[in-house]
């Protein structure tokens, strides 16, 4: 049970970090986005 929790928590953190990357990109002025 602990193992499942640890793996899920890790994946969740990195999913949030990827979403955060997308969020930072959305903050950029539109004409400059990649």
């Amino acid at each position, binding site marked *: 049970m602990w193992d499942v929790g640890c793996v899920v928590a*890790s994946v969740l953190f*990195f999913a949030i*970090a990827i979403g955060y990357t997308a969020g930072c990109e959305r903050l950029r002025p539109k004409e400059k986005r990649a």
Partner: protein
Amino acid sequence: MTANGWFQISLFFALVLVCAKPLGIYMARVFERERVWTDRILSPIEKLIYRFTGIDETHEMAWTEYAIVMLVFSLVTMLLTYGIERLQNFLPLNPQHLAAVAPDLALNTAASFTTNTNWQSYVPEATMSYLTQMLTLAYHNFFSGAAGIALAVALIRGISRREAKTLGNFWVDMTRASLWVLLPGCLIYALLLVSQGVVQNFRPYDQAKLMQSQIVTTTGTDGKTTTQTVTTQNIAQGPAASQEAIKMLGTNGGGFFNANSAHPFENPTPLSNLLQMFSIFLIPAALTVTLGRMTRSPTHGWAVFAAMAVLFFVGVTVAYYAESQPNPLLHSVDQRVTAMQAGGNMEGKEVRFGIANSALFATVTTDASCGAVNSAHDSFMPLGGLVPLVNIMLGEVIFGGVGAGLYGMLMFVVLAVFIAGLMVGRTPEYLGKKIESFDVKMAMLYVLIFPLSILGFSAVALMMPNLGLSALGNTGPHGLSEILYAYTSATGNNGSAFGGLSANTHWYNLSISTAMLVGRFLMIVPMLAMAGNLAGKKLVPPSPGTFPVHTPLFTVLLTGVILIVGALTFFPALSLGPILEHLMMHAGKSF
């Protein structure tokens, strides 16, 4: 303080200064794909790696792709590390038959080494098999360090490129950082360490018969005390030299043995001690030269180096002075410096290294995000212990971790340039790029996430008697410092421990894991976003309103911004911890 102590500190810094330029130029040539003398051996290996892994070395990545590839790579390697720790009892190279690592500790360790922190809530020689140490921990020591260098190079490219949409290729930068920088450095360095007596073998632990048996009393978790007579001692062995080399050169800091660089098998001689401190600063210092060369502004690189050097000397002076002073609570003890004793505060210090080299090591390891220790920071005088804490709180930008120190410092450079622009009423410019609202937002996001994690987690731990406070070894301001240091070290990806905190609990393992991940990845993303934005900008010719970034005035402004941001953010917490402890010590009370 003694002349001999200052001579050793000066010798250390002179070595760093002399070696920074050639290595910095070498790294600039490596990352700009110019010819270097190691190409003949390493280029065929690089080509083979790309062919085997299917990497297109000509593919350029936008900042978002660079960030996502880095994140996915980190997740996969972190999960593999977790798996190997949990299965080490079924795997080879485990002559001590060590059990599987507990799940919360395995997660903490996997997060710790993935983030270049190397926080260790365990005794390595009693917890990790040789395979776990070599296949996962040493692997992360290389690749988390290489990732840091790659990220710093990506930011430098963002500053130096004009109207570009890309920052390079993460895989290529990682490969070149590993093959051209870390691997050759570690090969030479490991041999030097072996020559000094650092062990390198796969033997089971030696067992020595004690000259005098010891009676040991222990108290179990159920409160029962047991007394036993100990007649033998296990002397740990293992492939320490190879781990030690990357531990220091990659500013990782995780010890092969629990005593870290105070252990005679990890750091046997004064020369190995000097080499260890030198190797912590070598790449971070050289990267300032790389910055100057890649941005075609070498004097800017030296101005950044100067700001780092000023902050380093302030720190080491305070730490050395504080540790050299007699403890006012020990009235009847002779604490003078004589030929027979070091004087000052020798508690928690190796007699082999003395006060100067302990204060210097503590300053260097926390200026950088290394975290290796050759003395117990918990035993430092309150102001001596304040220095490592403040060094990490300033963002570990005083040379800093490999790559991480430079990109952290460049975020402060952007803030300094922005403040200078506000003062003269002009749009701020940095090396010909206009600094606009998005860049400042990203710099502020980078700067604010750091204290949010440190102060947030510390506050929660301090408010929970059963989870946070029950693990403390000391009360009062010293206890506060122990908790504050733990989260500062974790978020700063330093990894050193103040001591006095039994951190191998569910709460600390999980909360420190989160702090380490937040302090690494949620700070890298805004840094890369700013790099991507800067890369796309046009170059503006310098005008009379441009603030020059290669002058002593710039160095003073940069130093001031770092100190003010750090002081404003953390002064209240510091005043309740080490500063209050210092004042109470002089009032006759210790904790």
